[in-house]
């Protein structure tokens, strides 16, 4: 399995990346860890005449925590997310999610930026970022702009990113309260049959805020406002959880594939969301 030939570039700043994208247009692709793109190139399902390797772009690296805000450079790896004690303190859901992505070797290479920008419905970070109400920062020839994670995804592999832009980082407020990421998968390294990200806050036994997003249950990640609202003002008793699950089921749109028929995916999504809500509530 050898991919078609390509020219290889390794610029060391964002400007250099944008210049190459401008020059080669549709024939160029950027690559971070490469663990989504290289398999596609080997299968010759992706043809990339000009491959731009981002590994030397230092500006895309690094984790910053300050003033209640967390910023992750696009090249931060899943391994670094798991390894980072500051993140484990301020946003433990990141470690919990990253630990359920792929396997150790893939996590040394796989990045936050690649995971959110690729637009693969199976990726876990997009749903998590919608749950956290993150902002994605894009840079193109006309400068920088910000797109909310909840507005970024249009269809499978289709996002608000223009062809001559790259995603340079994500940022979000450090989540308050209890948080959980639950994922059902067939085996290590598999994408989710169903996964749920939940963040909620508790005051005097009442849920005061909630955010719920689902992974791999539509062609885009699904933030469910109605499911979130179903928990607010309740004590997250079984009835409230059932209402949230019912609301979530209206928002997802799973299709039958080798992970199971639609009814099974709805069933799995219900169980996974119930577990995630209970776990987040216990931790709140």
């Amino acid at each position, binding site marked *: *399995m*050898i*991919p*078609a*030939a*390509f*020219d*290889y570039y*390794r610029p060391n700043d964002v400007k250099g990346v944008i210049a190459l994208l401008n020059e080669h247009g549709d024939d160029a692709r950027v690559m971070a860890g*490469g*663990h989504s793109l*290289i*398999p596609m190139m*080997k299968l010759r399902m992706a043809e990339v*005449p000009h*491959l731009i*390797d981002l*590994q030397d772009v230092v500006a895309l690296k690094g984790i910053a925590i300050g003033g209640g805000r967390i910023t992750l450079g696009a090249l931060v790896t899943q*391994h670094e997310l798991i390894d980072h004690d500051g993140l484990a303190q301020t946003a433990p859901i990141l470690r919990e999610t990253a*630990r359920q992505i*792929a*396997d*150790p*070797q*893939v996590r*040394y*290479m796989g990045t936050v930026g690649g995971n959110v920008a690729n637009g693969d419905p199976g990726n876990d970070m997009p749903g998590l970022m919608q749950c956290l109400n993150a902002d994605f920062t894009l840079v193109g020839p006309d400068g920088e702009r910000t797109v909310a994670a909840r507005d970024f995804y249009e269809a499978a592999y289709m996002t608000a990113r223009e062809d001559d832009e790259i995603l340079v980082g994500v940022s979000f407020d450090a989540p308050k309260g209890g948080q959980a990421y639950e994922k059902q998968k067939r085996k*290590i*390294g598999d994408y989710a049959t169903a996964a749920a990200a939940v963040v909620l806050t508790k005051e005097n036994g009442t849920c005061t805020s909630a955010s719920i997003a689902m992974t791999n249950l539509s062609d885009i990640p699904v933030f469910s406002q109605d499911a979130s609202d179903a928990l607010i003002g309740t004590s997250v008793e079984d009835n409230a959880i059932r209402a949230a699950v019912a609301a979530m089921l209206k928002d997802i749109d799973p299709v039958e594939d080798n992970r199971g028929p639609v009814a099974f995916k709805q069933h799995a999504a219900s169980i996974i969301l119930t577990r995630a809500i209970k776990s987040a509530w216990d931790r709140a």
Partner: protein
Amino acid sequence: MSNKMHIKLNVNGEDHEFLAEPRELLIHTLRERLNLTGPHVGCETSHCGACTVTIDGKSVKSCTMFVAQANGAEVTTIEGIGSPDALHVLQESFREHHGLQCGFCTPGMITRASKLLEENPNPTEEEVRFGMAGNLCRCTGYQNIVKSILAAAAELNAVKEAAQ
């Protein structure tokens, strides 16, 4: 289009320079160009871990990295971990505890395990299983692999203590 690149690699402490197409996969560089046939081609789809090597301190599946990406890097393969005359503690431990049957996955297992023990010298059984989840074995059922790695960790720690 298929211009060859000048590649520099340090593999197991030895410098190599050669011309290669950027699309050459690192596993083929190691096996066919440098004759290091320890890393194996198993699934060739980044699932099985038989091709695992260490690159600049990371465990990487070398079937899913272009040689161009590794340009300038330091690579360690199983050949750099131990030799038939001087087995690494992990290799001794796999032999002692029957951590292999057919042996096909073993180079990747030991290369990954060496990095795991470097990062976490005193792992629990659960941590070993989590840390080895990117390596598949079709023979052993993993029990003896986990046993081998835990025993190697204990041995390495005992050696370290004795040296202090």
